[in-house]
């Protein structure tokens, strides 16, 4: 018998099937997701060396009790009214130095101007986390609405869109540079001063 020319060829016809099987496994197990949420900065633990005196009228006090009720600047309000309330407070423009505030009522008992206005959020230990997030969301929303409006006026683009482009990894450095300048400009117009005081324990219950 003559010797065969070489080793017999392996049938590779089923390779595609095997590859498909693996492919489907990885397809099913993959979750391409990026988490998203509300970014916040906590205050540093050591108190500032110099005591800053802040006028009472420049603070917008928001209190949430354990039943999820809301006390804003001394009056009981509904959660859905919080955003407009906060915006009115930020834009009050009491000393008239803010030339970009549009609906400023110039109420002498409310904030002087957006750079001085501070929102202080207090909550009870028994407040539900869901309620707390809703309040946080509304307060951040109030800032975002104002910033969007100014950004729209100056750069014809909403602030939130610029910000999300800025944090994207794919954005080239030159674009980032340009965006950063605009973002800081808007942030200076409406600085986000949202203080989270330590929680009070529920008294009497």
């Amino acid at each position, binding site marked *: 018998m003559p010797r065969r020319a070489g080793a017999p060829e392996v049938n*590779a016809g089923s390779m595609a099937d095997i590859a498909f099987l693996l492919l489907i496994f990885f397809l099913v197990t993959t979750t391409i997701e990026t988490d998203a*949420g509300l970014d916040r900065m906590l205050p540093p*633990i050591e108190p500032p060396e110099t005591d800053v005196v802040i006028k009472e009228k420049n603070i917008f006090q928001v209190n949430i009790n354990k039943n999820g009720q809301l006390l804003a600047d001394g009056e009981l309000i509904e959660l859905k009214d919080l955003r407009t309330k906060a915006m009115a407070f930020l834009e009050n423009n009491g000393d008239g130095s803010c030339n970009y505030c549009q609906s400023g009522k110039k109420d002498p008992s409310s904030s002087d101007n957006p750079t001085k206005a501070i929102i202080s959020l207090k909550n009870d230990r028994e407040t539900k986390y869901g309620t707390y*997030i*809703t309040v946080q969301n509304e307060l951040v929303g109030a800032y975002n609405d104002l910033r969007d409006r100014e950004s729209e006026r100056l750069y014809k683009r909403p602030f939130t869109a610029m910000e999300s482009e800025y944090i994207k990894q794919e954005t080239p450095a030159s674009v980032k540079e340009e965006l950063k300048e605009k973002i800081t400009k808007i942030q200076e117009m409406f600085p986000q001063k949202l203080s989270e005081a330590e929680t009070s324990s529920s008294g009497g219950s």
Partner: protein
Amino acid sequence: MSKFAKKKSGELPAVSTASLPDIVFMLLFFFMTVTVMKNSDVKVENVLPNASEIKKLEKKDRVITIYVGAPTREFQKVFGTESKIQLNDKFADASDVGDYILMERAKKPQELQNVLTTSLKVDKNANMGLIADIKQELRKVNALKVNYTTYEGDAFNNLK
């Protein structure tokens, strides 16, 4: 003229499937590289609240995650139904959070250690007391950047 006789054109030639495995392999490698196997089981109820003013957490290597919620049913016998903190895959107290953050921070490369974000994945029925304790611990170890991780949606759904 049999040399130039037309080929019979009755049937279409079959499409070659020889490159099919290559295409499939390409897809396979793509999914293999993007797949992230979850390294810790979530042992607590973790229905996040909704929010609309959210920012994406890009760059996963800069995130430390803390889970908070009531233990799931299989752990309720041992740990009760009160909200608990889960670090890696263990239940922990608020006082352990600081150590955990420092440990995780030490694992990261030097240049990332100052830009880490703590992602708080908290069940929407948890109480703020526990969150306040965690925040206090985070402040002690100077991990001030936090992200309250939420789903995208209308924030008023949280109240129902």
